[in-house]
């Protein structure tokens, strides 16, 4: 792997300044994992900052507690500084490197790629469904959406996209891990890994110290954590729906669209993909909408406004994916099926293609930082004592 381009040196300088101040104060160490991790260091180089920035969940409790926050002379804005560094790391670790440019105008990039995805799906449909009319309706018995785009074509299309996506995300993760391994000691134990997974699944550090974090405004609230849970678990359930459907198709030979519960004979097992997708889909409607709503109310002093497009782009894409998924399920036996297939699969393809170059990567690096943190907690002492 070639040497990565450093994040802008002004960000490193500001990050170092901020950490020097915080490490001499330490009042905030009870809020999250970032401050104790900082206290395991006495100097702060770029790799330390890149790690700490990705460990930060941006709960912003520390800003309100900070005696050095603007307009105080030191003008310390911990959450914003770390957000800016975080954004720079997304570009630094992006693979392949040239695509890092997509982070610059990420909202626009997400929109354009999603639009192109619609065209790609339409093109694939047109080239593969030669004998079928795209304006007709097909019953479930005739395959419904599989009539206009075969299961095989879908698997081939999204299998390829998923493989590319996986490689890009894995390469990014590897870059993050290698870049920030400077001061880490010891290897990843099972307990450390389990702790990090637990931290992710519970969103432990969006809890503040307890009772939620200072988001969107000063006083503790669990709103963001709950909306994020809806988004996260919604995403997982939708992924599970697809996975279960694939298993049904290939291992059990249950071909054709899974039955919608309540329509025709009830078969909960065979309807599982629909059930999982619907429950997850509800999460993906409410969660991202809630996060967008909170974002509109948040304290703008703490936000890196340059990231608004990226944040909103991903959230809107999730909402559209879920929405089109529900529409496709509901109207799959009507003449709108082709349009809805293009809409839904286009949005899914949009997500797949933009995942390594958009907001999604925060989860990848956050997880890596939490693993590193769990290892450090077991191997590195707090430095400096009175």
């Amino acid at each position, binding site marked *: 792997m070639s040497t990565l381009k450093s994040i802008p040196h002004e960000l490193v300088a500001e990050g170092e300044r901020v950490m*020097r*101040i915080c*490490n*001499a*104060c*330490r*009042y*905030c*160490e*009870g*809020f999250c994992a970032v401050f*104790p991790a900082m*206290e395991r260091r*006495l100097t702060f180089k770029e790799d330390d900052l890149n790690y700490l920035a990705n460990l930060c969940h941006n709960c912003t*409790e*520390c800003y*309100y*507690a*900070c*005696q*050095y*926050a*603007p*307009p*105080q*002379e030191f003008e310390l804005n911990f959450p914003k500084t770390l957000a800016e560094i975080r954004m720079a790391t997304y570009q630094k670790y992006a693979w392949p490197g040239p695509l890092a440019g997509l982070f610059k105008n990420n909202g626009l990039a997400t929109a354009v790629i999603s639009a192109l995805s619609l065209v790609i799906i339409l093109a694939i449909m047109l080239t593969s469904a030669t004998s079928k009319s795209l304006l007709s309706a097909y019953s479930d018995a005739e395959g419904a959406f599989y009539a206009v785009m075969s299961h095989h074509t879908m698997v081939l299309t999204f299998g390829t996209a998923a493989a590319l996506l996986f490689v890009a995300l894995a390469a990014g993760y590897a870059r993050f891990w290698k870049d920030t391994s400077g001061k880490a000691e010891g290897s990843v134990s099972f307990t450390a890994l389990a702790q990090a997974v637990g931290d992710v699944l519970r969103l432990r550090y969006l809890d503040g*110290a*307890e009772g939620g974090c200072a988001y969107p405004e*000063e*006083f503790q609230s669990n709103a963001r954590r709950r909306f994020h849970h809806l988004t996260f678990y919604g995403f997982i359930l939708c992924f599970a729906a697809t996975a279960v459907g694939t298993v049904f198709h290939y291992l059990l030979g249950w071909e054709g669209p899974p039955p919608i519960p309540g329509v025709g004979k009830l078969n909960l097992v065979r309807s599982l993909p629909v059930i999982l997708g619907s429950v997850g889909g509800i999460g993906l409607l409410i969660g991202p909408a809630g996060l967008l709503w909170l974002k509109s109310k948040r304290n703008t002093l703490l936000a890196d406004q340059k990231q608004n497009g990226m944040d909103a782009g991903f959230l809107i894409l999730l909402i559209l994916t879920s929405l089109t998924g529900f529409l496709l399920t509901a109207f799959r036996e009507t003449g709108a099926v082709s349009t809805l297939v293009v809409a839904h699969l286009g949005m899914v393809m949009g997500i797949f293609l933009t995942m390594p170059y958009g907001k999604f990567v925060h989860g990848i690096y956050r997880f890596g930082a939490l693993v590193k943190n769990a290892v450090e907690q077991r191997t590195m002492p*707090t*430095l*400096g*004592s*009175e």
Partner: protein
Amino acid sequence: MDLSRVYDVLIVGGGNAALCAAITARRNGCSVLVLEGAPKEFRGGNSRHTRNLRCMHDGPADVLTDAYTEREYWEDLLKVTGGQTNEKLARMAIRDSAHCRKWMVQHGVRFQPSLGGTLHLSRTNAFFLGGGKALVNAYYRSAELLGVDIEYNSEVRELKIQDGKFTSAVFVRKGFTHEIRAKALIAAAGGFQSNVAWLKQAWGDAADNFIIRGTPYDKGTVLKMLMEQGVKTIGDPTQCHAVAIDARAPKFDGGIITRVDCVSLGIVVNRYAKRFYDEGEDFWPKRYAIWGRLVAGQPDQIGYSIIDSKSMGTFMPPVFPPIEAESLPELAKKLGLDAEQLVQTVTEYNDAVRPGTFDHTVLDNCATEGITPQKSHWARRLDKPPFYAYPLRPGITFTYLGVSVDEQARIYMQDDKPAKNMFAAGELMAGSILGKGYLAGFGMTIGTVFGRIAGKEASLYVNA
């Protein structure tokens, strides 16, 4: 704020003591107005920079370990003040410190175990999660929810007092002057430490070299007005909480990060490159509060804490990077000190160091022999370059000159009679208890205890 009304209780000041008083008075049914001189972003006075309060407890209690009895607490206070305290008031503060945490939690304060690097305080001091500004935020929030009226940027310029009875206050806000009436006054506006002119009256020109660690808004205007109105004061105007802090700190408001915690690990020299006090007299947490006065007593009020590479990384990292050099003459040059003299001072010190087993966690047996001043503990030769230096100045936290109060927090007049409707809390009256010296976290204890007493007594007076 309704300027035409007569408030039950007017509180001048907006820090911990003021808010404890405001919340208590409001909970007792009074209408309360808080006039905070600072803008909202800087509200809370010195409380903004605090991090814990010292609590008595007979056994492990939530974030506190072991026990810290009334007797030990009182003896600690007696030791640091050299007896210059008021036992009745001090014991009230000590006793109530055992109970006030519950009240604090009810009003939004959150606690946490003692901070990394401060384990020695885990027994005696309860740390606020997020520090003092988080506490101040919680109290303001509670006060607002209870219906306390709060005005920022409102500096009181005049107190109208007749025959020991307060009637109204004149204050300036957004360029306009207003007068507000109230049935009782609680003064909780801090010391006068950020009033350099006043400091100079007490200290002479030396005060020009003092750095004010906390809020720039504690100019002592309320204290001065009370003094001019015949209130009895207590304490010596030169007495204050003063620590040696990094000379590169901003003039005001640098807070905790400007401290330098390596004094006991090396030597401290003055501008003539000579040592002037036993750097290893006792544990640093017991000695840090005397070094402000020590440096204040040196020429040009400056000192230099010098260590070698053996000590680097074994103390709380100061915010500003050390001045670093590969040799002592080079270090002297960078500090503007006489190189020959510095080398001589270090050589004499090194030669006086007796062999011992270094252990910074106990009063170890590493001491010097045959030099003055001696270094009693943790004396190790300065011989492993690079050498590091931190310049030191006196950093004033708060002054002790204050108003005289009784157990009801009533302000006393010069004729030794209590004022009818005037009470005081916090740094403005802490001199009654702290004649000199300091115990970490005791200022917040006094503020919390006497803030609540003042709030209660003022409401009893109003409701009578």
